[in-house]
């Protein structure tokens, strides 16, 4: 019997769903082996029945549930709880689902105050924050495992399409799902010479030094070139063509797969990594930025209101 799959997106951008599509040609075969019962981006199953007369939000039962996005409002929570109830195995897909992702940067502020400000921009007519028939925001943005039990985490912004395909295939065949456990640096072929003479990290305002015709493994490590690069404190998984994705573009890592260790704090870990290499961590001008992908789980907290 085909494996039944339900998919949902919450506080999300659809990048995870595009990553599912980027499985590419094997997807056609996979789609035939799976029985999708609910996936709003591709399929018209409705919460309240096909003519909208139901009273309770309903998602069909499934063997595997996939949820992208964090939890930012009441509707997200309701959908997540229904997914948990109806799915035997629940997968958190993408860094918003596993660690809050970028939307959790809003946890720096009181959500209602932040919303008020958003409706006061220079082009916005005088108004109040919409509050009719739209879901109320929660007090902050949560990762999924702060709200329900999650069976498998596949982080990444976006997640690696091959991890998604691999996880689905493993579940189809009743095998164990294997995902990377090391750091981005462990998958990075750039040249490291050990402790350098870098004392401060630079903003990425000029390009790295490298020769375009030469492969990545001839380029000096970007951190050793003095650029802030979060490879040391970020979970591996983005590497596809022999190097981490951003490094292929000759651009430093910003940590989009979240911390290497479960429960790790990318900001503290990075500060430690810099300090232990004799680099002044005060040269990082925006430290909160280092939690830009992993601010849920209470790691980014509200600033005290300024008077």
């Amino acid at each position: 019997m085909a494996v039944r799959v339900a998919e949902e997106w919450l506080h999300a951008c659809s990048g995870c769903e595009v990553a599912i599509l980027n499985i590419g040609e094997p997807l056609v075969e996979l789609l035939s082996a799976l029985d999708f019962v609910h996936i709003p981006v591709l399929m018209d199953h409705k919460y309240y029945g096909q003519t909208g007369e139901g009273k309770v939000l309903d998602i069909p039962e499934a063997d595997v549930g996939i949820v992208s996005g964090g939890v930012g409002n009441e509707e997200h929570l309701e959908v997540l709880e229904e997914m948990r109830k109806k799915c035997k195995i629940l997968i958190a897909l993408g860094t918003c689902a596993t660690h809050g992702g970028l939307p959790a940067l809003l946890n720096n502020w009181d959500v209602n105050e932040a919303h008020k400000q958003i409706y006061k921009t220079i082009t916005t007519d005088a108004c109040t924050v919409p509050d009719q028939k739209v879901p109320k925001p929660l007090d902050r943005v949560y990762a999924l495992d702060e709200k329900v039990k999650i069976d498998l985490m596949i982080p990444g912004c976006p997640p690696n399409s091959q991890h998604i395909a691999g996880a689905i295939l493993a579940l189809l065949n009743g095998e164990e799902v294997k995902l990377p456990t090391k750091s981005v640096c462990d998958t990075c072929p750039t040249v490291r010479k050990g402790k350098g003479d870098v004392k401060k990290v630079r903003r990425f305002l000029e390009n790295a030094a490298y020769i375009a015709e030469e492969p990545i493994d001839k380029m000096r490590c970007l951190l050793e070139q003095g650029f802030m690069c979060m490879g040391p404190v970020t979970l591996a998984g983005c590497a596809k063509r022999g190097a981490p994705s951003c490094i292929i573009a000759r651009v430093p890592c910003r940590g989009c797969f979240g911390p290497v260790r479960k429960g790790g704090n990318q900001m503290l870990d990075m500060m430690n990594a810099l300090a232990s290499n004799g680099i002044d961590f005060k040269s990082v001008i925006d430290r909160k930025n280092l939690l830009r992908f992993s601010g849920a789980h209470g790691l980014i907290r509200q600033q005290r209101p300024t008077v």
Partner: protein
Amino acid sequence: MGKVLTIQPVTRIEGHASIAIELDDNGNVKDTKLHLMSLRGFEKFIEGRPAEEVPRIVNRICGICPWMHHLASVKAVDACFGVTPTPAGHKLRELCQVMAHINDKILHFFFLAAPDFVIGPDSDYAVRNVIGIVKAAPELAQQVVKMRQLGQMMLERFAGKAIHPIAGVTGGFAKPMTEVERVGLLRDTETLLDFAVYALDFAKNNVFNKYLDVISKLGTITTGFLGTVDDNGALRIYDGKLRLMQPTGEYVDFPCSEYTDYLAEHVEPWAYAKMPYAKSWQEGFSMDLDHPKGIYRSNTLARINVCDHIATPKAQAALEEFRAKFGRPAQFTLLYHWARLIELVYACERTIELLQDKSITDPNIRAKVEPKAGRGVGCVEAPRGSLIHDYTTDDNGCIVSANLIVGTTHNIAPMNMSVKQAATMLIKDGVYDQGMLNKVEMAVRAYDP
């Protein structure tokens, strides 16, 4: 009060929305609302971030069109810092932006919209989707998946990431293009152009001509249009000036930096998304179907309407055929799909033009940048409409405030009108079914929100 029909979630779109159709005591449509349910707050949480980091934050606004946000943002940061990108940096950015349009259009037309036409608008929801197409037309499906994948992997191969890109940087681009890369991308784009021409023919024969009656009625409203053109009035999607056209066809051109003189955003208490309107028409805002005020549309049909011509031959021929049939400006909502495939052809032709110019491999890809206080507006044509990023920075080059007008939002008010028009036309005397409600959604899907 009569019954309320709720379509939730609106499906095969990017994002969270629901439709409420309120019926009167006789079962006829009294009112409709398209509720936009999501608010993440990018305008707020980029505050304090170093501006050069923002292009790799705001790309997460949309996973389908991350290149658009990435590059509108890069342009806005350039303007804040007073830097002009090098010619090669500029070309590489445009190349990636135009290539990203190719994938987007294949995705929208074949994966999201086509099931309504290929499987049929009234068919069972369990098969009215791309999985249904895989089963009903496996060869077509295989080809579509292959072509979309080719486009995505071209971007990934050259720029590291296709989704949530990082290669656009203030001052230009992070890596140059080698001759080997140029030749490879050119060869692949020629394959994509062949597919684009096939796709347009396929859609004309199997969709547009077959559904002409539906196209001329469903969701049809009369509005103005907004898009981007160059100094010769030709369609542009990366750079140019904005053109705001009235329903009568008269228009005004302006640089994007002056957008606040022309556009404002209305807010309804029942939708998180703001509703931009043409402030410069000085008639206010109204979504009344017979007497709309300030309402214009954006996205493919709008761009096809506002441009005088298209500067690439195959797309120009398609535009001429389209205009001969539907006039200028064309108002039928479902023509967004047709216009989308004309733009698909343009995007392939323009990519080839850019790659044929060997100066794109010039290694001088990034100008010198110094962070400073300033204000900058960046605009590109995203698949879903004119995308405007407006930032103010402090002395340290960090963001003080931001204002974003995102492509889809230009069409929020028009989508509401199209929903009302479609529901009113379809639902009479309390008679409705899932096929009719799906047709109401088709009026939304045309806008590819």
